[in-house]
């Protein structure tokens, strides 16, 4: 092979390798392409929206890159600080993780979207999570909940009904165990999964009686250690002791836990509701799923459910193609785009509208939202990502008998005080 041929071959291989990580549509003549980045879990939603957007804007070139959450957070931060970030990118509402709007907006990398007409339609419960310093920086796309997704066939096989009180929940665990099934699949090897059962219980043990807990935490008049968090952790451990969860949760990954639910080896799985699609795709044909809020007391009226804006999109303040980026952001705020996104990701549109057909499995989340019985995800209101990390590590230590709830909650209080 001649050297020039070799060079061309290497360059071609390089171009192919680069292209393999992203998807592009419709090359246009000369104008700057629109670059978008999103997390892989929301790929189906973003692709549905982009297909509709492309149909309305033929001839525009759009390059989209998807990556796993951890990789996405690291890459996005590096791109923002080096001036190479995409024009429109996925951003988490609120705070508490490295790619959240409250972390990114103060640096000046996000465009101020406050002047857009759709900002007035954002529900009051979600609005604070889209704003920093009174200015709106993201378009919230979805409303997701955390509850127990259950396999209806497996539920019938153990002869149980979705529990509505704590005592019924323990009886449900016993019923599943007696029939050789796992009551709740639990993949605590995957760190972010560790928090979900805790959040589901805390919604009731903390927020049913103390709506202002987050404000009190901010002002320093409340602590994790002196709140209903301790009750929730004790109940989490009680469920583990009772045999409610998968065998060896610390050795079970998220993927394995979803597979257990899909196959019916586990009756339920306390998960983010957007996991419903993944469970459906792995389940045998005809499998039906349902959702129930996780009770934490014996008064069913007290039960609350974590529910919040799950995905948001921001516009780069220094977008290479600001006009098209603005156009896409505005399109994403329309009922058409929100419904496409929510439908493809198994979530609800963040701005409710009549045209959206709710998956019947998600009806309990809709009902709780209407009744005002949802509470924001806990980490979305924390001041830094270290609290969440202390929570992840703490839960794993609790399950490994290496710590007790008091120690874990004190570590979380300590992390909360840091910048």
């Amino acid at each position, binding site marked *: 092979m001649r050297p020039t041929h070799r060079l061309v071959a290497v360059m071609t291989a390089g171009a192919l390798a680069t292209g393999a990580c992203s998807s592009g549509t419709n090359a246009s003549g000369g104008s700057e392409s629109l670059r978008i980045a999103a997390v892989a879990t929301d790929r189906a939603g973003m692709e549905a929206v982009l297909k509709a957007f492309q149909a309305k804007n033929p001839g525009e070139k759009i390059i989209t890159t998807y990556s796993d959450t951890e990789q996405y957070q690291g890459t996005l931060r590096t791109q923002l600080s080096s001036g190479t970030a995409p024009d429109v990118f996925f951003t988490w509402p609120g705070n508490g993780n490295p790619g959240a709007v409250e972390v990114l907006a103060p640096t000046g990398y996000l465009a101020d979207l406050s002047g857009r007409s759709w900002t007035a339609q954002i529900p009051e419960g979600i609005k604070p999570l889209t704003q920093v310093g009174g200015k709106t920086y993201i378009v919230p796309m979805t409303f997701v909940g955390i509850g127990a997704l259950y396999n209806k066939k497996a539920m019938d096989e153990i002869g149980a009904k979705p529990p509505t009180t704590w005592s019924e929940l323990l009886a449900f665990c016993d019923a599943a165990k007696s029939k050789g099934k796992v009551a709740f699949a639990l993949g605590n090897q995957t760190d972010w999964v560790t928090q979900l059962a805790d959040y589901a219980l805390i919604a009731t043990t903390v927020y049913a009686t103390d709506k202002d807990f987050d404000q009190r935490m901010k002002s320093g008049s409340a602590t994790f250690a002196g709140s209903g968090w301790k009750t929730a952790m004790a109940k989490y451990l009680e469920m583990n002791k009772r045999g409610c969860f998968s065998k060896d949760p610390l*050795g079970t990954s998220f993927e*394995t836990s979803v597979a257990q639910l899909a196959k019916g080896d586990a009756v339920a799985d306390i998960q983010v509701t957007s996991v419903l699609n993944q469970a459906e795709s792995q389940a045998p044909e005809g499998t039906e799923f349902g959702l129930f809020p996780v009770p934490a007391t014996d008064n069913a009226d007290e039960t609350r459910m974590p529910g919040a804006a799950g995905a948001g999109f921001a516009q780069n303040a220094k977008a290479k193609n600001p006009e098209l980026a603005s156009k896409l952001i505005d399109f994403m705020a329309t009922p058409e785009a929100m419904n496409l996104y929510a439908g493809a990701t198994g979530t609800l549109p963040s701005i409710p509208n009549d045209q959206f057909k709710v998956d019947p499995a998600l009806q309990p989340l809709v009902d709780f939202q209407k009744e005002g019985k949802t509470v924001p995800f806990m980490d979305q209101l924390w001041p830094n990502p270290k609290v969440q990390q202390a929570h992840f590590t703490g839960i794993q230590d609790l399950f490994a008998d290496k710590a007790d709830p008091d120690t874990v909650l004190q570590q979380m209080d300590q992390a909360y005080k840091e910048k």
Partner: protein
Amino acid sequence: MAQGFEGEVTQSAEPGRRRAKSSSAGSAGTVTRPGKRARPVLAWFLIPALALYAFVVLVPSARGAAFAFTDWDGLNPMRHFVGLANFRKMLEDEAARDALRQTLIIAVAITVVQNAVGLLLALGVHSRIKSRNVLRVLLFAPAVMTPVVTAALWKYILAPEGALNGLIAAIGPDSWQQNWLGDPTLALCSVVGIIIWQFAGYSMVIFLAGLQGIPQEVYEAASVDGASDWRRLRHIILPLLAPATTINLMLSIIGGLKLFDQVWVMTGGGPGTATETLSTLIYKNAFQFNEYAYSVALAIVLTVFVAVISGGQYRLLHRQGRAAR
């Protein structure tokens, strides 16, 4: 890795250079003069490569290291000089101490066991057993695979209801089944075991190359003298394998100290912090905790740590190797 190979090249080239000098001295000074003149000229040819190396490695590394003396969070355009604050923080950071201890355990365990297994495998496939070529390929095959891929596969195999526990259930009592990656007391051993499984074949190949370099006459002379197998191994094979041993030990200790991918994929540093290494802690601080400057300080300490340990080890083994020859 580079240090080990460069060292060996210098060492083996040394006698040759001496011979060249003595022969040229014997054949009048005219032979040496062009060499002396050529050296400065030849040095100019190094400039493009050195410039590229400086541009790609040295300058970015130095600029990156400077962040360790700031409070940069990896995102905010504003940053301030904080002196040695990040290094002082390290001394009080329990997570850093735990990660350092676990990193050392992993590095030592991998270095000792992987090389012992690699040597035994090399001795085995160096013998005249049938199908030794097939065995060599099979034993080396795991080393060819990407660590992330093998780690992902083992994560499934070692799951509570995975293939390993399934196999154990088929042949032994239930009590033999373990929570391989979920039990904090076992997780570190499991991770080390997987790495040894993957790279013992790599060490084997290097030892095998060393064994094949030992002249047959030496074995024959030992046989004539009536040396037992053990004495042959102790007094002939091991001393003559010194260069291969040096390279293997260097590679495995450096690999062990900067271990990231397998740990990240299999346990993410958990359960809790049971398998956290310095590399995973650096990643978490940089990209999950908004502590970029602190992560750079940790990375500098890791670099110095690797350089001191591997450099010291190299000098020691190099001296022992020369003494043996």
